[in-house]
């Protein structure tokens, strides 16, 4: 086993993940272009990985610890929760993923698992039944995390404010960082809200790191 051999192998092992990441990024761009979207940046997989390593670890059991989801802002993954919405805002959130708006170019992925998410996007006011669920999902997300209330109902209850079952806006249950008004909220304003949320996310992260250092 010569030195050249070992160097060769080491190069192989180091370069393979890089190449893999680039290929994955390329793949995402190509599939986005095929759908008529712009797609994420080429380096998106690396942004995702970097974020993954700088987030807090969430586990359900010690033995199953896994790294979860920073430059944080480059890879904001979203968890979309429909509280007591009329589904108008939900349609608009989904519209953000379509070719016209294409939020994936900002690195956004709509995940189905709170443990992977950075941004909790909630539509609709909170009623008594879903209040606990909202709390739980918020708790299941790993720090740092940001909550965006989409639509007027999520902001303060909207027209349902006085309904017997509605508690009010999302901020009656969990702290909200960004309010996106509208009925229904326009995709442009939702994207604007996400961009604002990204800034909040980065601020929170810096704060968290600073706290860690002082400890």
């Amino acid at each position, binding site marked *: *086993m010569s030195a050249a*051999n*070992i160097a*060769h*192998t080491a190069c*192989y*092992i180091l370069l393979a993940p890089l190449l893999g990441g680039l290929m994955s990024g390329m793949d995402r761009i190509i599939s986005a272009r095929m759908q008529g979207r712009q797609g994420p940046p080429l380096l998106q997989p690396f942004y995702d990985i970097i974020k993954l390593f700088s987030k*807090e*670890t*969430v*586990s*359900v*059991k*010690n*033995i*199953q*610890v*896994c*790294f979860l989801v920073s430059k944080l802002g480059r890879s904001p993954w979203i968890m979309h929760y429909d509280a007591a919405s009329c589904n108008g805002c939900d349609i608009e959130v989904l519209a953000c993923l379509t070719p016209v708006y294409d939020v994936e170019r900002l690195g956004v992925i709509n995940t189905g*698992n*709170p*443990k992977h998410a950075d941004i909790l996007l909630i539509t609709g006011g909170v009623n008594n*039944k879903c209040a*606990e*669920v909202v709390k*739980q*999902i918020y*708790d*299941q997300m*790993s*720090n740092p995390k940001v909550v965006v209330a989409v639509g007027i109902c999520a902001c303060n209850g909207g027209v349902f404010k006085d309904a017997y079952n509605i508690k009010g806006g999302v901020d009656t249950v969990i702290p909200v960082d960004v309010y996106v008004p509208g009925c229904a909220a326009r995709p442009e304003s939702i994207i604007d809200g996400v961009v604002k949320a990204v800034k909040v996310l980065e601020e929170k992260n810096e704060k968290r790191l600073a706290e860690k250092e002082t400890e």
Partner: protein
Amino acid sequence: MENLLLFLILFPFGSAVLQSVSVNNTLRKIVTYVSSVAIMAAAIVFSVWWFANGAQPIALLSNTGIIDKVMMAGEIFLMVLVTVLSIKHKKYYAIVLSVVQSVALLWFELIGEKSIAHFEPAEANHLYIDQLTVIMILIIAVVGTLITVYACGYMVDYHHHHTEFKDRRRFFFSMMYVFLGAMFGLVMSSSLTWMYFFWEITSVVSFLLIGYTRTDEAVNNSFKALWMNLLGGCGFCAGIIILGFNNQIFDLQDLIQKSVLMGNAAFVAPVILLAFAALTKSAQLPFSKWLLGAMVAPTPSSALLHSATMVKAGVYLLLRLAPLMENNIAGTMVALIGGFTFLVTSMLAITVTDAKKLLAYSTISNLGLITACAGLGTTTTVWAGVFLVIFHAVSKSLLFQNVGAIENLTGSREIEDMHSLIIRFPRLAYPLIIGIAGMFLAPFGMLVSKWAALRSFLEADDKLVGILLVLFICFGSATTLYYWAKWLAKILSYKPQSTICTNKLSANQHLSILVHSFMMLALCTVFPLISRDIILPYLVNVFGYASEVISENNIVVMIFMLVAVFVIPVATGIVIKKSPPHHAHVYMNGYNEGDDLNFKNSFGEDKRIYLTNWYMEDWFGEKKLYIPSAAIATAIVVICLAYSLGGTL
């Protein structure tokens, strides 16, 4: 030092006698421990001595008049035993098969041989030792005896749980030792009649072991094993007689050397008969049912029969015959049956929920791969085949022992009941993970051999067979990955509120399992050395040439991978220690009620979660697949046999 070989053959029979008179468990333990240590030590000392002295093939025992007579007596005894038991259980077909072959062979040995021109009796050497033999000796000595050690603890628990069965442990242990002795004899024999004798012992003893519990099911399955193996024995016997009369060959090494000199075309008919015998022994389709039925036996006998011994006898013979099967109809038959079995049984394994049955299917499937490798008969495929034999023996034995221990501890061997084993019983879960990883994950040996096999299938001379085999191995590997990964996930998955299992695993079971796990890991790291120092010289001996199958660069990559397998979990552990994780509830489709098991859905109803594997019974079910594939395999065997025998007889 050569005497050690005779010791290895004879000593297990001696311990078998001792076992049969060991009246209580303490005595049994002592006999087992002492014999195991003696056998292992003899095998290891011999192999070290042999390698240290240049690893030249040894031929032994040329003059064996008396031993031959003893063996004849043994054959008659086996025939009588089979006859008596068959009459007792009213399964008369077994008598026919047994009597036909025994009488034919006795006639051949006593009368037929003398009529053959130029025959000079007692010239050939009856034992022959080369690298392949030594590998087999080591496998049998180490894996086989460890299984008997494991059995000491296991059988106590077994009879504790199954009070309905009669305690016949003395018989059980003595049969296991007879089996080991017969296996040593089989792999060392070069004389075909000797090999046949040991072959018959393994058939009959496996029949006795499978019928251990004496329930109706066990008896039926044991007779199934018996008739299939006896049918193979008939093929073996016919092969010996044809070789004797047509080619004046009585000796396996003689056969191999002549075929290298004269080309293998002259020997197709006897070789295909011997290969047929090997296919039955290795439980290839259409003879797979006996191995599945053999799962009714207590686990140590399953482990012994299906990892290190019985089924390995078949593939051992095939690997020996590999040079005789290159590019002819015998090779085509063996390769096709092997590849086809690999694919079909790995698909069947998907639907299985019983861990032991899954192991049975995966055993057949891996043997199919080895068979296919032997059938192509090139140096690369034989290289892959030998490695598959080594890795399969260790990891399968480990898996069987684990499943047996889990069954005794938790009362179930269903895969669905093995959830979160990593929390409930880490001491068994880690070896189980090593065993499963050894079966399909990179960089463990099975995968390397599969890769080598795939490469050489692509280079096969017969393009049609080559392409078929490539398809078989591609789809077979995919399904293999699926059923192993499914099981692995079940062990690792966390079911809330699992608690550590308090039942104790007896020390001897634990010892055997631990030693196996370490052997598995060690094999993964030293396998380039095994390749360079043992298998390549063997290939040079047999084929006259051999090339490096796997390049050094690939090996370095694999070592890195192996290191990574250990580094990543450790690194994760360290990082976690540094910043303790924030505990959260499991995410469910609704409000988690706090115990991670129940949730309220959007209608406010209480729901309980249950995670289960997907078994795809409707697509790959045994009822759907088994009979058609057995029919196809039968057709291949019948056509190839008819074609080659019709041409020569």
